[in-house]
């Protein structure tokens, strides 16, 4: 296992289409890094550059202290798992897993030992003589993972490996991946557009949008301290509520829907924005059924352990997540409030979060 350094990686396609801008990232030994972002944000391109399937237009890729920027994929000692499994349909599970070692002309006894060990880890021992088409989606993806782990590569690359599976299987495979990571202590770079996968799997998340890295941090950092509007909106389900508010001299935030008295801390934070409009962000789970803002219920969605309540504060649409079973009806009027320490403010122009550091 090993470390990885991506230094100023850029990818420019024909006709000057730039897919990735100045990507910088350090991945430590044994770290599980998730690249997350919407479709077309450049996350897969970045992964493919690491794999060597795309040329790096400029920048440097270093694996274990060695510059591999110009190296062909087979010499980089990486293994990749693809979204659609990419299994060799004409080979059995055993042959699929053994393929890379066969190409390297490894000793057949060694190959057998390794295949059996990988099959044991992945629970595929009884499937080894089957062809991929005889397997279920989850088993196929396990074979693809087996093909990767058998080589004991320096870095594992996963390109949306769970997107083709149904929801239940995805959950169980996610846990299996976590266990596998613990067992192998592997360095993993994992691409997904699903922020739940990112939050649950990652040691470190790289949130991307339009080719730019928006924020790098632990899942908790991204969840609690999003650097900008994009990250705040992307991480968390349901998404954060955003409301344009004006900061008044008497320490209130005012919008057509409500007036809210800010705490002393928030007043200090926003002292440069008095008289200006900022974006106020609050996660649905940080809205409480206690306060003085009028809220008209539109939809009451029970999820079991919690309830999503969609509705309006005057004209402004908000989503709240209450940690109990609610039975509101349409047009019920309730009062809501916000959890002080979970309120986020963003500069309307730069879209960056307004933080203490910002004021210093």
């Amino acid at each position: 296992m090993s470390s990885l350094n991506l230094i100023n990686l850029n990818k420019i396609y024909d006709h000057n289409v730039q897919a990735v801008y100045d990507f910088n990232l350090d991945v430590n030994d044994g770290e599980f890094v998730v690249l997350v972002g919407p479709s077309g944000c450049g996350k897969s391109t970045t992964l493919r550059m690491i794999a060597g399937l795309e040329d790096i237009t400029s920048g440097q890729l270093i694996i274990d202290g060695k510059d591999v920027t110009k190296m062909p994929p087979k010499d980089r000692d990486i293994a990749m798992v693809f979204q659609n499994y990419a299994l060799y349909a004409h080979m059995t599970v055993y042959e699929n897993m053994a393929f890379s070692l066969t190409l390297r002309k490894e000793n057949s006894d060694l190959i057998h030992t390794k295949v059996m060990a990988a099959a044991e880890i992945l629970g595929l021992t009884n499937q080894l003589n089957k062809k991929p088409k005889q397997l279920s989606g989850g088993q196929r993806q396990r074979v693809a993972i087996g093909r990767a782990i058998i080589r004991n590569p320096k870095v594992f690359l996963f390109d949306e490996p769970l997107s083709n599976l149904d929801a239940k299987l995805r959950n169980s495979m996610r846990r299996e991946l976590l266990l596998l990571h613990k067992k192998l202590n592997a360095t993993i770079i994992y691409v997904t557009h699903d922020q739940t996968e990112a939050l649950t799997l990652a040691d470190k998340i790289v949130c991307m949008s339009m080719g730019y890295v928006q924020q790098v941090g632990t899942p908790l950092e991204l969840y609690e301290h999003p650097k900008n509007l994009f990250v705040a909106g992307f991480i968390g389900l349901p998404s954060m509520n955003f409301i344009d508010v004006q900061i008044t001299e008497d320490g209130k935030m005012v919008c057509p829907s409500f007036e809210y008295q800010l705490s002393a801390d928030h007043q200090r934070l926003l002292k440069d924005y008095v008289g200006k409009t900022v974006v106020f962000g609050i996660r649905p789970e940080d809205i409480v059924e206690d306060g003085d803002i009028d809220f008209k219920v539109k939809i009451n969605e029970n999820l079991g352990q919690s309830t999503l309540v969609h509705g309006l504060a005057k004209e402004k649409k908000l989503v709240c997540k209450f940690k109990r079973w609610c039975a509101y009806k349409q047009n019920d009027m309730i009062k809501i409030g916000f959890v002080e320490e979970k309120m986020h403010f963003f500069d309307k122009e730069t879209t960056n979060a307004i933080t203490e550091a910002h004021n210093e």
Partner: protein
Amino acid sequence: MKRRLEVSELIFKILAYTLLTAFAICCLYPFVYAISSAISGRDVVDNNEIILLPKDIQFAAFAEIFKNNAFWISYANTLFLTFYGTVFSLFVAILGGYALSKKRLLFRKGFNFILVFTMWFSAGVVPQYLNYKKTLTVFNSIGIQDTKWMIVIAMGMAAMNIILLRNAFEGVPSEIEEAAIVDGATELQVLTKVYVPMSKSTIATVGLFFGISRWNGYYWAQRMIPANHSFEWPLQVYIRRYLEDNIWNSDQGAINVEVYSLNSIVYTMVICAIIPILIIYPYIQKYFAKGVNMGGVKE
């Protein structure tokens, strides 16, 4: 539960079955007729009395053929042409189809255009003949001029088959190729260990196309192998010459004809010529039916 057929469906079914049956009879009849004629007696064959079943059964025509060395030499030539012709053509078509299926191939569009162009417009028989003859004099030095090898090489390429293979290779998902590259396969290994086995059915189909066209190949074989190299002739050319020499141009032939008609000899040759195809076809047919769909339509 069985559903009752609508009247229009019923009419369609009756029509379809009738037409297909008629077509099947049209295909089968000449074959049965040939067998009957081959094993019927001389008089009934010469007087055109055979309609379906044989009369005055004799096997002397087969005995005569089994003794005919020139026939078996040409038979061996045809086997040779079919085997090496198919192998060589497949080799060319697989490499060509693979290269043309890759988007990164330089001038790919141009090459594809040139390839398809030869399907729309051929040069014509005389230029083609001159081309083969002149180009292949190059091979004179290695001693293959006027031999079977000329057919193998000159007829080695078929645009249609390359396109079928190209489409089959394009149908293999690009992730599979990438997976193989990441697994450490070289370009040649990607082709031989991944693409070729995954396109087995199309390759079998194209192989069958090549094989049948070599087996049945007559015109160019007859043009390119001169009469003084008659020991290089394939079966089809030999049968034709046999007809010319013994039936059309002579008065009841050079061979002693007693119990069978000369026509029976011809039919016997025809049957011998078709037997290998009848034996091989059922084995390849399963690929053939699947392969035409798989290669022709890009999924």
